[in-house]
């Protein structure tokens, strides 16, 4: 029996039925069908291959144990994505903290009268594919430089595309704290990108 429809996507309902019936082969189908995307997510969060693989393994085992709790209100892929994010966040919390830039140093500065101390300039973004890849790399490195508390919110909201409510639940924060941190994280990222993107190419 195949779980792949004509689009090549997994038929989640059929797969779920087999998993719940205890079909051994269904577990392998799930790992092969979803593992690649889950690993990509864990790499984005953890930036380290070994940790990323461990997080995916933990997440999948925890998903297998918790299949009864999956109620079908979300897609199976969405549910697994949340579980791997949670496993990655737990790993980040256990990790030795890296030296961080103070966020305040990355926020815009103002004069006493409330005007910007360094008025913004437009960016000139490259159009050719190679330079765009370089910009992507610059953005990834800059996100890595953000303090964890801000980096994680930015990754969950802007990269993993979770909504405010889900982000708040995963991080154990209030929704208003998520909104404030997201705004500061974006401002800080903008500050880090600004010297490179002003006046390019």
């Amino acid at each position, binding site marked *: 029996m195949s779980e792949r429809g004509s689009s090549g996507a997994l038929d989640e309902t059929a797969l779920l039925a087999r998993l719940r019936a205890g079909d051994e082969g269904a*577990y*392998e189908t799930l*790992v*092969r069908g979803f*593992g*690649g*995307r889950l*690993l*990509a997510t864990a790499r*984005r969060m953890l930036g380290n291959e070994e940790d990323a*693989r461990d997080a*995916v*393994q933990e997440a*999948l*085992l925890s998903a*297998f144990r918790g299949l009864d709790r999956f109620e079908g209100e979300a897609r199976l892929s969405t549910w697994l994505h949340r579980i791997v994010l949670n496993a990655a966040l737990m790993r980040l919390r256990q990790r030795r903290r890296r030296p961080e830039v103070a966020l305040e140093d990355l926020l*815009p500065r*103002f004069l006493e*009268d*409330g*005007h*910007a101390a360094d*008025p*913004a*300039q*437009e*960016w000139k*973004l490259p159009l050719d*594919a190679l330079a765009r890849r370089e*910009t*992507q790399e610059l*953005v*990834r490195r800059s*996100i890595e430089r953000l303090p964890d508390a801000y980096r994680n919110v*930015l990754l969950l909201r*802007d*990269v993993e*595309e979770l909504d405010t409510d889900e982000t708040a639940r995963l991080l154990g924060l209030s929704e208003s704290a998520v*909104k404030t941190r*997201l*705004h500061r994280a*974006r*401002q800080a*990222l*903008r500050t880090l*990108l*600004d010297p490179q*993107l002003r006046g390019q190419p």
Partner: protein
Amino acid sequence: MSRLTCRELIEFLRDYLDGELPPEERERFEHHLRLCPACVRYLHTYQETVRLGREAFREPEGAVPEEVPEELVRAVLDSRRRGG
């Protein structure tokens, strides 16, 4: 209507972009933008930052979806069989 400063404008920027500013605040915000080219440029580069963040990890169009490393598949399935 009291004037918004650049500092306040930047503070309210996310709320503005998410459509969460009450109408009167929104009017003050847009009034400031009409008079302040530097804040317009800040708004543009902030929006670019959000877009670049979204795209930072995106694979190029047509990229083959990543396979799961075989060791990882084996590790997960073995661990499950052992009751992990």
